[in-house]
């Protein structure tokens, strides 16, 4: 196992970097997009509500691999898009639908009195939502958001299907060359733990601090 590490150090590190990059982009992208769509889902405006719900239901209910291959194989006819970005964009869209649901859940469990109070103090719906209700909803959504972010890191292994150069892709390349998938995947599994372990500790910490 040590030999796999020393023989393929630079390959593994390249994969590690791409997985981290994809995870960070995916995390930020899906958090922003997810919040936007959660707000749309809850909007009083019927049209916005329809768009938000349609988006969430669409991307939540098709497999990540299908979205990824759609960007890699179909969209790339029109726009040049490599495996890494095809996978990462798919990851953002897919995860943001789940993030939107988490945030909606969080906001829904905020006491309705908060909204009523804010409105009766003269704030508009948008102001009340953004300054009063959404921050509290976020706090309540943190545990389930943590789950989604850990899933996101693990789901980034989807990049391996479209030559996205991530950890899983490198694992396949390495095990194709050394013909020892057993130990190679164990090593790669440990690298994923190095990413998800601290992330879940951090999310727990955040959860405890904000409570």
């Amino acid at each position, binding site marked *: 196992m040590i030999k796999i590490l020393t023989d393929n150090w630079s390959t593994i590190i390249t994969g590690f970097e791409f997985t981290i990059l994809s995870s960070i982009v995916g995390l930020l992208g899906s958090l922003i997009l997810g919040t936007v769509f959660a707000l749309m889902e809850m909007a009083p405006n019927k049209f916005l509500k329809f768009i938000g719900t349609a988006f969430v239901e669409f991307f939540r209910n098709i497999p990540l691999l299908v979205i990824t291959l759609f960007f890699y194989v179909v969209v790339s006819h029109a726009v040049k898009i490599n495996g890494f970005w095809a996978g990462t964009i798919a990851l953002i869209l897919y995860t943001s639908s789940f993030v939107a649901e988490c945030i909606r859940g969080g906001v829904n469990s905020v006491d309705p009195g908060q909204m009523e109070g804010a409105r009766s103090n003269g704030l508009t719906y948008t102001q009340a939502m953004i300054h009063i209700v959404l921050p509290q909803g976020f706090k309540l959504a943190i545990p389930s958001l943590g789950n989604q972010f850990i899933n996101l890191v693990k789901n980034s292994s989807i990049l391996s299907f479209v030559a996205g150069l991530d950890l899983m892709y490198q694992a396949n390349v390495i095990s194709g060359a050394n*013909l020892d998938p057993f130990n190679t995947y164990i090593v790669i599994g440990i690298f994923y733990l190095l990413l998800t372990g601290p992330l879940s500790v951090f999310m727990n910490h955040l959860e405890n601090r904000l409570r």
Partner: protein
Amino acid sequence: MSKLKGKRIGLLAAVVLVVVLVGSLVFGWTYHEYQSKTKNSLKNIKSAHVMRWGVKSDTRLFGLISPKTGQSEGFDIDMARTVTKQIAKDQGTKIKPEFTPVTTSSKIQLIKNNQVDAVAASMTITPERAKIVDFSNPYFPAGQSILVKKNSGIKNIQQLNNPKSTIIGVMGTMAMETTKKFAPKAKLIAMPDNSQAFSALQSGQGDAMTTDNAILYGFCQQSKDVAVIGGTFTNQPYGLAMDKGQTDLQKAVNRALKEIRADGTYDRLIKKWFGNIPGLDWRELTK
């Protein structure tokens, strides 16, 4: 007090979890070793009357799922069938072939896990692989080539030897390694299987796709706007693979191969699958 108790239980649970994880890993490994030391594939095949083959499900001409039957069909499958029949005849018993789909990267692991007895999956005989599995004598004379879009203007692999070119290979194939020798400057990306590599080529993710000529010819048959160019630049025959140390089975397979070559069955199979491919003379393959 109860909080302290809760903490203790948590700690205990964590310890138990780690022990179970490590334990199952060690157990799995030793069982695996034990199994590979004591197994005799030929004996198992004879007593079960079933020979389990790993075959491709995504490779035209060699092993491709037929939408009509839901079964893999191709030269490899016919080969596996014929070899099984011949072994049964030689051993004086009845043996049925059974097929499991494998991918390029999973085929060796499936042999090692004893999920299949042998693999007929367009597999090149290489010294590295021969350390891990045993090969039969060659059953198909393959060589590496490249497939490009007809309108790309690429004539040979040398033209791809620059950092701007991207060559698509298939994960876990020998072609990945040899391409590094013939076009070291080109960017190389690996797709999980043949059909995905081909759709990547079609959607412009790379300038050329490389793997064995026979597989590439299969794609030419399927799509009119691609062509195999520049001939083969390696000589990499295919072999049937079985687990390391299964000498009895290896001997039986080799004997069967020799017999089907002698009685003309082999030529018939080659003609059946490669007889009508433009730019390929099937008689070349039977030499």
